[in-house]
């Protein structure tokens, strides 16, 4: 029996836009167990990013409850969320978001610094080999292709040995070939190390390769048919 690491009940996030309330995430119930590989799909504005932000402890929740590693996140003050994220959750973004002034390996070292973990160069070199970037560790982001940058970002997320990975459209800025390559890295890590991965994507071909797909629409979980997407 595997552990539930994320448990959401009636999870809701409301944004106020002018006088209007936007229910970006609207009463979602969700259990994610250790080792899951989950794809979030749904049309633009359906709440994928918002849900990932909540699960990733990047944002405060409006109502409902959310437990991450058994901790009730709704009770944690926004300023204390960083303590939950640090060293436990890995993030990968659509536009990579590397620090432009730092080389590939320095970007990864910085995340270890923030996580208060040792910066072991040997281990890092191995990690870079795992993501297929062994030869480019001393290059600056601007000297790399999109696919290569995303590999650095994955290395950055993995370096701190997180308990799960959150990837928001990690292939959104990549061509078909690199998209599949990047997706394969996720699959490999999930299979070989059992790392939990929650990934949002617009690409049904990639999404279908995940263990589970969760369809969202208007901030709610819906069936594949209801998602009216595909």
């Amino acid at each position, binding site marked *: 029996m595997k552990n539930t690491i994320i448990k959401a009940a009636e999870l809701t996030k409301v944004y106020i836009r002018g006088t209007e309330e936007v229910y970006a995430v609207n009463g979602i119930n969700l259990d994610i167990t250790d080792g899951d590989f989950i794809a979030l799909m749904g049309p633009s504005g359906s709440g994928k990013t918002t849900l990932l932000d909540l699960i990733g402890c*990047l944002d405060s929740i409006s109502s409902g409850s959310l437990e991450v590693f058994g901790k009730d996140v709704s009770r944690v003050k926004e300023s204390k969320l*960083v303590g939950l*994220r*640090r060293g436990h959750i890995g993030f990968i973004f659509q*536009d990579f*978001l590397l620090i432009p*002034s730092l080389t590939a390996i*320095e970007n990864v070292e910085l995340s*270890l610094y923030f996580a208060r973990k040792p910066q072991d160069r040997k281990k890092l070199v191995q990690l870079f080999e795992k993501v297929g970037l062994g030869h480019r560790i001393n290059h600056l982001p601007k000297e790399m292709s999109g696919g290569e940058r995303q590999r650095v970002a994955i290395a950055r997320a993995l370096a*701190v040995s997180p308990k799960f990975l959150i990837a928001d459209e990690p292939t959104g800025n990549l061509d078909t070939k690199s998209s599949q390559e990047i997706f394969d890295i996720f699959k490999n890590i999930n299979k070989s190390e059992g790392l939990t991965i929650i990934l949002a994507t617009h690409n049904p071909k990639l999404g279908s390769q995940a263990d589970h797909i969760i369809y969202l629409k208007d901030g709610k979980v819906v069936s594949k048919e209801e998602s009216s997407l595909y």
Partner: protein
Amino acid sequence: MNLFSVALKNLARKKVRTALTVGGVAIAIAVLVSLWGFDTGYQRSLNNDIDKMGYQVLVTAKGCPYEAATLMLQGGGGLRYMNEDVYKRISGDARIDKITPQLVATAYDPGKQSGRGGISLYMGIADSYLTLKPWSKFKSGKWFSDENALEAIMGYEVAEYEQRSVGDKILIPGRNEILTVVGIFERNGTQDDGIVFLPLKVAQKIFEVPDKLTGIGIKLKDMAQLSKFEEDLYNEPGIQIISLAQVKGTILNLVSSAKAMTNSVALIAVIIAVIGVVNTILMSVFERTSEIGVMKAIGASRLDIFRIIWVETTFICVFGGVLGNIMALLGGKTIEYILKSVLPYAPKGHLVVITPHILTLSFFGAVIMGLVAGLYPAFRASSMKPIEAIRKGE
């Protein structure tokens, strides 16, 4: 990787902008250091000038005290004359330790300053002159052979400038008398270096002021008796008494009003530099919104972000401080040259003295400037919320 290397690499990314900001700080610090250096140097030279006079009190003919103070430092009294019998009357006073009569005279020398012409200074002195200035040493030659001898002793600089040595004959322009140089003083860093000394009686004859003096230098046995001594001399007609402490005060007063202005210039320079630094760092914080957001997402605390930005600002100011100190050290001579031409009274010696103390102080000033300038941008950066920062950057 640590905060320092992140901060340094960020600064290196925008080289021109960083260099300009550092330059602004450097200029402010250079101005500050130069002013402090001037303050120190001026006081020091002035003290040296005054101490090396050997007397604390000067009796001169009545006149404008400011003019007298200035002229006196340039050679011992305003060019107003008093009768020699004043000297005879007061020299017997029991409170006096040492006393010496002086007669300052000037002559226009058309050959001076490479033919542009200038004033040469002469001073008639008596044997007692040396007792007031026991440190005076001869570089060559010796004292006058007789109080009526047509002889001259030259200050170090005039001798150097006119290329004179002992035995040479000199002519005082406009007076048809030829004098023999019998001695040359060693350099002592005061106005004396630029004066040609004659026996008092000879000077009185050549400059056609028989039985006249321009000043009497007095050293009292006890400085505490000064005010009583001054009071007693009130009855002497046509003279005034200037104490050197008073002169120093007067000159420092003249200089301090100029200093107040330059200090405010320095303050403005510092304020402008601080605003420049704050502006630059704030700009770069806003440019890096999404970077800061992602750093927070991957685990940077508020304090981490605060420190990165703070360190960046402090680096800029430290670089600026070091550069400013170097600029001040290199530019000191130029500033000295300018100051000498505008000051009401410029003592001999270095006007701008930049001590290690000043350098240390200005360096720490720059560090503090950085720490203060960094507070607000660092606060802004550390207060950004991660998701908002990431989305704003998108």
